[in-house]
C-alpha cells in the first residue's frame, strides 16, 4: 500500500509544475486554490501493524485450551462477529477479492484476537459496552439506509454497467484466486472456509437470530441485515457499512494493479467511511428485496460459464443450478456445494431459502447430471424432498386472490381442498366463492374450483375485466362468457345480474326462483371446451362430501405437520385412560377396530371372563369354608351331642364333584399363570361346563357376595352377567363390550389415534368451522407404568399441545401397593404422578387438562364413603342443605357435584402452586360417549384459547379465579 501511495505522490509531483502565464491581464478574479486539508483526505492510514509477510503466516488457528474457554468465548464471540461482519461486504464487483480477504481476515483476526484477549483480558462488561454502543450506531445507520431508498433504481443501472464492464477484471481476479488456492493447498482452503463458517455461527449466536438454518449461510447478508433492522439487536451493521466500502475500494485497487496481489485485501479494511454515504445507499438498495421475501445472490460471481466452486470449465460443461441463487456447479463440485440436499438442489448456504420463482417449473425434474452422479434411489429422494419440502412450496403472499395476498392458512386451504386450482403460480387471481369460478385478474375464468373457500377478499366487479354489463355473482363477465351463456340458452337481454351456484343453477339477482342450470345441457360442456372456458369437474358434484373427502385424502407431510395437533392422554393405572381412548376411537373412527383387533379382543375378553370366574370360584371356596366353619360352630353351640355328619354338610356354596373338578382345574391353571396359553382350546370344551356352573346355586350365591372379593374388578359384573354368551366360540364383542373390557388396547407403551371432530350439524357457512374440520388431532395414550423416576423418553413428546391428565374420582378410598410395597391411597398415587408430570421439564409451559373420570361411580360412592377417607381431602366439609329430601332441583348441588368441584379445586391449587399457571378441569364419564366427546372438545377449546391467549387471558382468568375462590375450605 505504501508503494501505491508513493506512486500517487510521484504523480502529484509530475502534474504540479506551474507554467508561467504570458497572456493578457485578466479582469476577473482568479480562482484561488483552496488549501488541501491533509487530514480530510481519505488515506488508508493504519497500515503498518501488518506487514505482508506476517499476514501471510497469520492464518494459523490456535488450539483452544479447554480451560477458561468460557472466559475467552465472550471475547471471541465479539471479535468473530466483527470479523464476520466484515464478511458482509460483498459488493458484486469484488467478490473474489473478498473471498480471499475474508479467509485471511477471519482467520487472522481470529487467532490474533484470541491472543489479544488473553493478554489484555477484556472484561465482559466492556464487551457489553461495545455492543451497546454499536447498537445505537446501528440505529443511526438504519436511519441512513431508510432515507436513501430512492436512490435504489439509479444504482441498479450503474451496478449493471459495472457488471458488464467488469467481466474482464473478474476473469483476472479469479485466476489470481486460483493461484492462491494452489499455493496454499487444498487443506488450507478447507480449513479456512471452515473457520469462516464457524465465525458466522458465532455471530449468529450473538445476534440470536431466529432464522434457524440461516447460520451456515456464508453470505447471507440481506437476510441478516433485514433481521437486524427489524430487531435492532445486532452489532453488525456498522461494521457492515465500513467494511463494504473498504472491500469495494479494494476491488478498485485490484483492478488498477491488474489483478495483482490478492493478499493485500485485509490491509484496506481499516478505512474510514463517514464521507462515503453514496456507496452506503447503493448497497442498501441492492440488498433491499423487491418482494417481502428476500432473494439470494450466489455466493460468488464468477466468469461466465465457469463452475462457481472450482471456477473451472466453460459454458459448455454440464452444470447443476442452485434453485435459490442460480449458482452453477460442475460435475465435481455439485455434491460438495450442495451437500446432502435436504431441500433439493440448493447450495448448502441456500438451504432454508425459498426457491427462485423462475425455477418453480423445474422443481422435482431431475437433470441428467445428477442421474449420472447418483443412483436412482438417491435421485428419487432428492426430487421428493425438493418437491415436497415446506420451504419450496409456493409462498402464500405471492398469490393474491381478489386483490388480497393470501395467508398461509388460506393457501393451505386452497391447496388441500377437494378441487384445487391447477398449477398454481404466483400472481393475482380472482375467485368467485359462490360458483367456484377461478381465474387470473383481468382474464376469463380458468377453472372451477371448490366453492365457499374463505380465501382472499370478495370478488370485484372488474375482476375479469369484462365489459358486457352482465354480472355473475357481482363480477362483470367477459365477452366469451357472455357468448357461452347465450349459446347455453340463458336469457341475457337487459344486462341481467345473475347469481350462479356451484352446481350451475342460476337465478337473477333479487329473485328466488332458479331459472335453470348452465351446465345442464350436454352441449354446453362441449361448447365450453371450444371457448376454452372451464366446466365443473366431477368431484365438485359431490359437494356434500367434500369435507369428509378432504380429510381422508392423504396430505403432503409439510401440511400434515402443521395441521395435526397432538393431545397426550396420561393417568395413573386404573384411571380410565384406555376407556377414553377406546371411546375416542368409537366416536371418531368409521371403523374403530379392525377385524384382527376384534379377534384379539375376543380372546382377551374371554380369558378375562375365565379369570373372573376363577376369582369367584376362589371366593366360593372361601365362603364355603367360612360357612362350614360357622355351621360347625353353630352346631357345636347347639349341643355337643348333635350328630355331625361331614358328608351331609350342605352350604349354599357347595358344588357338585364335576364342577368341583373343573373349579380345581381352573384355579390350578390360574395359579400357574398359563391361562392365556391354554384357554382358546379350552373354550369350546368347557363352554357347557361353564354354563352349568353359572346356573348353579353356589355360584349365584357367591356372585351376590362379589363385593367382598377385592380382586374382582367392578367391571366384571358386566361380563359375568353374560358370561355364557361370551364364552361361546362364536362370540363377537360389541363396541360396548370392547369399551368395558380391560387391557384390550395394546396396553404396553404407547397407542395413538388420529381423528378429526365431525362437522357440526348446523350450517357450515361459518368459515372458522370449515377450517376446523381440516384440523386433525392425534390422541396419544401412554401407560403410566413406563414413567419411571427419570423417564428418559418423555422429552420425545415435547411437541404435544395439551396434556390430558386423567384421574379416577372414585379412587379416593382405594388402596394400592406402591414401589416400596406400602399400601397407599390410589388418589395419593395419582397426585404424586400428577406432580411428577407437571414439574417435568418437557411439560414446562404446557397446557394441562385434568379429566376427573368415573363421576358416575363417584356420585354413588360418596354417599356411602366420606371423601375424607383420603388424607388429601380431609378438609372437605360440604355445606349440605338441611332439607335434602327436596334438594333435587338444580340450585342445590348434589354431594357428588360438590365433591367433584372440591377435588378439581384441590388439583387446580396444586397446579397453580407448582407452575403458577391455571389448570383446566372437567368431569367425565368415560363410558358415556357424549361425555368423552365433550371432554375432547374441551381440549380443543383449550388449544384455541391457547392460541388467542394474548387477547383474552385476563377476562378468562377472572372467570376461573372466581370459580376457584368460591370453594373455600
Amino acid at each position, binding site marked *: 500500500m505504501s508503494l501505491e501511495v508513493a506512486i500517487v505522490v510521484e504523480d502529484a509531483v509530475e502534474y504540479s509544475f506551474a507554467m508561467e502565464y504570458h497572456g493578457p491581464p485578466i479582469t476577473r478574479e482568479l480562482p484561488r486554490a483552496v488549501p488541501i486539508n491533509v487530514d480530510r483526505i481519505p488515506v488508508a492510514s493504519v497500515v503498518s501493524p501488518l506487514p505482508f509477510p506476517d499476514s501471510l503466516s497469520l492464518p494459523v*488457528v490456535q*488450539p*483452544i485450551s*479447554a480451560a477458561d*474457554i468460557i472466559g475467552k468465548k465472550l471475547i471471541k464471540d465479539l471479535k468473530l462477529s466483527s470479523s464476520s461482519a466484515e464478511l458482509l461486504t460483498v459488493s458484486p464487483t469484488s467478490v473474489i477479492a473478498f473471498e480471499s480477504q475474508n479467509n485471511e481476515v477471519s482467520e487472522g483476526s481470529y487467532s490474533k484476537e484470541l491472543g489479544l484477549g488473553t493478554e489484555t483480558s477484556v472484561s465482559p462488561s466492556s464487551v457489553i459496552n461495545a455492543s451497546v454502543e454499536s447498537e445505537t450506531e446501528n440505529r443511526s445507520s438504519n436511519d441512513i439506509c431508510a432515507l436513501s431508498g430512492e436512490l435504489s433504481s439509479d444504482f441498479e443501472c450503474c451496478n449493471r454497467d459495472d457488471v458488464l464492464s467488469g467481466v474482464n477484471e473478474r476473469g483476472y481476479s479469479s485466476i489470481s484466486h486460483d493461484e492462491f488456492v494452489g499455493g496454499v*493447498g*487444498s*487443506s488450507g482452503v*478447507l*480449513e479456512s472456509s*471452515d*473457520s469462516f*463458517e*464457524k465465525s458466522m*455461527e458465532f455471530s449468529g449466536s450473538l445476534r440470536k437470530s431466529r432464522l434457524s438454518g440461516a*447460520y451456515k449461510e456464508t453470505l447471507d447478508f440481506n437476510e441478516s441485515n433485514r433481521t437486524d433492522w427489524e430487531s435492532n439487536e445486532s452489532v453488525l451493521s456498522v461494521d457492515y457499512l465500513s467494511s463494504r466500502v473498504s472491500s469495494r475500494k479494494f476491488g478498485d485497487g485490484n483492478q488498477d494493479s491488474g489483478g495483482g496481489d490478492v493478499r493485500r485485501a485485509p490491509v484496506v479494511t481499516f478505512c474510514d467511511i463517514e464521507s462515503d454515504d453514496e456507496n452506503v445507499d447503493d448497497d442498501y438498495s441492492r440488498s433491499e428485496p423487491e418482494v417481502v421475501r428476500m432473494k439470494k445472490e450466489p455466493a460468488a460471481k464468477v466468469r461466465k460459464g465457469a463452475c462457481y466452486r472450482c471456477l473451472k470449465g466453460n459454458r459448455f460443461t454440464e452444470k447443476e443450478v442452485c434453485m435459490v441463487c442460480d449458482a452453477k456447479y460442475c460435475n465435481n463440485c455439485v*455434491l460438495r456445494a450442495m*451437500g*446432502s*440436499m*435436504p431441500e433439493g438442489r440448493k447450495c*448448502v448456504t441456500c*438451504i432454508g431459502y425459498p426457491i427462485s420463482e423462475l425455477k418453480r417449473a423445474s422443481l422435482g425434474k431431475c437433470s441428467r447430471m445428477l442421474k449420472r*452422479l*447418483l*443412483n436412482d*434411489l*438417491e435421485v428419487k*429422494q*432428492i426430487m*421428493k*424432498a425438493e418437491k415436497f419440502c415446506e420451504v419450496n412450496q409456493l409462498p402464500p403472499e405471492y398469490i393474491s386472490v381478489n386483490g388480497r395476498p393470501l395467508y398461509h392458512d388460506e393457501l393451505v386451504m386452497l391447496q388441500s381442498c377437494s378441487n384445487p386450482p391447477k398449477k398454481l403460480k404466483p400472481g393475482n387471481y380472482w375467485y368467485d366463492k359462490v360458483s367456484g369460478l377461478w381465474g387470473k385478474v383481468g382474464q376469463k375464468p380458468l377453472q372451477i374450483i371448490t366453492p365457499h373457500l374463505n380465501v382472499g377478499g370478495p370478488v370485484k366487479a372488474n375482476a375479469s375485466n369484462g365489459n358486457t354489463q352482465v354480472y355473475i355473482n357481482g363480477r362483470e363477465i367477459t365477452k366469451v362468457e357472455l357468448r357461452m351463456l347465450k349459446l347455453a340458452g340463458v336469457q341475457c337481454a337487459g344486462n341481467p345480474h345473475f347469481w350462479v351456484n356451484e352446481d350451475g343453477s342460476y337465478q337473477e339477482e333479487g329473485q328466488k326462483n332458479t331459472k335453470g342450470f348452465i351446465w345442464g345441457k350436454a352441449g354446453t360442456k362441449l361448447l365450453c371446451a371450444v371457448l376454452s372456458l372451464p366446466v365443473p369437474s366431477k368431484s365438485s358434484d359431490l359437494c356434500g362430501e367434500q369435507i369428509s373427502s378432504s380429510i381422508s385424502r*392423504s396430505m403432503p*407431510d409439510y401440511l400434515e*405437520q402443521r395441521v395435526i395437533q397432538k393431545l397426550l392422554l396420561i393417568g395413573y393405572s386404573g384411571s380410565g385412560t384406555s376407556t377414553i381412548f377406546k371411546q375416542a376411537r368409537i366416536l371418531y373412527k368409521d371403523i374403530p377396530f379392525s377385524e384382527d383387533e376384534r379377534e384379539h379382543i375376543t380372546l382377551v375378553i374371554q380369558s378375562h371372563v375365565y379369570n373372573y370366574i376363577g376369582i369367584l370360584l376362589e371366593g366360593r371356596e372361601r365362603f364355603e369354608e367360612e360357612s362350614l366353619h360357622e355351621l360347625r360352630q353353630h352346631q357345636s353351640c347347639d349341643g355337643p351331642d348333635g350328630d355331625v355328619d361331614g358328608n351331609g354338610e350342605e352350604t349354599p356354596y357347595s358344588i357338585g364333584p364335576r364342577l368341583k373338578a373343573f373349579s380345581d382345574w381352573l384355579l390350578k391353571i390360574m395359579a400357574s399363570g398359563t391361562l392365556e396359553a391354554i384357554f382358546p382350546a379350552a373354550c369350546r370344551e368347557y363352554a357347557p361346563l361353564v354354563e352349568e356352573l353359572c346356573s348353579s346355586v353356589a355360584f349365584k350365591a357367591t356372585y351376590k357376595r362379589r363385593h367382598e372379593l377385592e380382586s374382582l374388578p367392578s367391571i366384571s359384573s358386566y361380563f359375568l352377567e353374560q358370561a355364557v354368551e361370551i364364552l361361546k366360540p362364536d362370540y363377537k364383542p360389541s363396541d360396548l363390550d370392547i369399551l368395558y373390557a380391560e387391557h384390550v388396547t*395394546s396396553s*404396553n*407403551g*404407547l*397407542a*395413538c389415534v388420529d381423528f378429526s371432530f365431525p362437522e357440526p350439524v348446523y350450517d357450515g357457512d361459518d368459515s372458522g368451522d370449515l377450517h376446523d374440520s381440516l384440523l386433525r388431532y392425534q390422541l396419544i395414550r*401412554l401407560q403410566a*407404568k*413406563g414413567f*419411571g423416576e*427419570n423417564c*428418559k*423418553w418423555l422429552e*420425545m*413428546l415435547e*411437541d404435544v399441545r395439551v396434556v390430558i391428565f386423567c384421574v379416577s374420582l372414585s379412587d379416593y378410598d382405594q388402596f394400592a401397593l406402591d414401589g416400596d410395597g406400602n399400601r397407599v391411597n390410589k388418589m395419593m398415587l395419582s397426585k404424586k404422578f400428577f406432580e411428577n408430570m407437571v414439574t417435568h421439564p418437557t411439560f414446562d409451559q404446557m397446557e394441562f387438562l385434568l379429566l376427573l373420570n368415573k363421576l358416575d361411580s363417584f356420585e354413588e360412592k360418596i354417599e356411602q364413603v366420606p371423601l375424607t377417607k383420603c388424607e388429601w381431602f380431609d378438609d372437605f366439609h360440604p355445606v349440605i342443605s338441611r332439607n335434602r329430601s327436596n334438594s333435587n332441583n338444580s340450585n342445590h348441588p348434589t354431594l357428588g357435584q360438590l365433591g367433584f368441584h372440591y377435588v378439581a379445586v384441590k388439583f387446580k391449587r396444586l397446579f397453580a402452586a407448582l407452575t403458577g399457571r391455571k389448570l383446566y378441569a372437567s368431569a367425565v364419564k368415560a363410558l358415556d360417549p357424549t361425555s368423552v366427546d365433550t371432554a375432547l372438545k374441551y381440549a380443543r377449546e383449550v388449544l384455541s384459547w391457547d392460541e388467542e391467549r394474548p387477547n383474552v387471558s385476563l377476562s378468562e382468568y377472572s372467570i376461573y379465579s372466581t370459580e376457584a375462590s368460591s370453594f373455600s375450605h
Partner: protein
Amino acid sequence: MSVAELKERHMAAAETVNSLKERLKQKRLLLLDTDVARYARSQGQTRVSFGLTDLVCCRTLQGHTGKVYSMDWTPEKNRIVSASQDGRLIVWNALTSQKTHAIKLPCAWVMTCAFSPSGQSVACGGLDSMCSIFNLNSQTDKDGNLPVSRVLSGHKGYVSSCQYVPDEDTHLITASGDQTCVLWDITTGLRTSVFGGEFQSGHTADVLSVSINGSNSRMFISGSCDSTARLWDTRVASRAVRTFHGHEGDVNTVKFFPDGHRFGSGSDDGTCRLFDIRTGHQLQEYNQQHDDNEAPHVTSIAFSTSGRLLFAGYTNGDCYVWDTLLAEVVLNLGKLQNSHDSRISCLGLSADGSALCTGSWDSNLKIWAFGGHRRVH
C-alpha cells in the same frame, strides 16, 4: 409365617446382601492397586496427539426435521441408517451424503435403529414397544412408503435399543423399558429367549442399551437404569453371567471393546468406564472434571478399531475423544469447527474405522474423518 415376620426376614436378608456388597467393594478396591492410566503412565506411554486436520467434519447429513435419536452403520458399505423424532428412518449413503431411503414410521416415537449385517434391512424400535423390520428392497406402496416387513412384538415397555447378531440377518437382540432384553428370531417373529424380567436375576430397571460381543456373538452386555451393566450368555437366559457395578447413574450406553474382552459404558453420572468381562473389575474411569457440579451425561460411546480412542457424546454437545490408555481427553469434537449445535445423541464408527458419525438433537448427522494432509509440527 405371618406377613410381618416375612417382612422382617426380608429386611434382614436385604441388609446382609448390602453389607456383603459393601465388603466386596472394599475388597475390590483393596485389590485394585492400579488402573489402566496409572500403569500406562508408569510404562512411559504418551498420549495420542491430534493435528488440526486429523479429524474434521467432512460431511453433514441434513434431512431430518427432528432430533436425531439413533444411528447405525452397515457393516460392509458406507451406508448409515438414522432415526429421528420426526418419525422417519433415513438411510444415507455416507460417501455422497445423499439419502437412499426415507421411511415414514407408523409410530413416530422411535428410539433406536439398526442395520442388518447384510445391509438388506433395517430395524427400529421405540415407544410402541415393538421392533419393526423394514426390508430395503421391498416395493413401496402408493404413497411411497416402505411397508413393514416384520413386527417383533412382545415387549411390555418401550424398545430402547436393538442390535443384529453379527453375521446373522435372522437374529436380533433388543433392550426394553420392561427391564428385559430379548433375542428374537426374525423369520418367525418370535422370542427365542428373554433375559431378565420375571425372575429377579436380571435388571431391576429399564434396560437402555445392548452391545453384542463382536468376536463371540453369544455374549452380550446390557446397560440399565439400575446403574449396572450385565453380561449375558444367549444360551443361558435365566441369569446374567456377571453384573458390573460402579456407575452412580443410569447406564445409557454400553459398547464392547474391539477385542471382546472388555467393554465400555457411559452413564448419567457423567463418566465412561471400562470393565473387564473376565475379571468383572472396572479397569478405568473416564471422567472430565467440570467446574460446576452438574456433569453432562454421557449419551453414547464408540471405540476406535484399535481401541486406543474412545469417542463419547455428552448431553451438553461435547464429544470427547478419550485416550483409553491414559484416560485423557485428546480432542473435543464439540469445540471443533462445524460441530453440532446441540446434544450429541448417538455416535458410531464405520466398519473399517475410517469415519465417525455423530447424530445430534440439532437434527443433523455429521461424519468425521481424517482431513487428509497432516501438518508437520
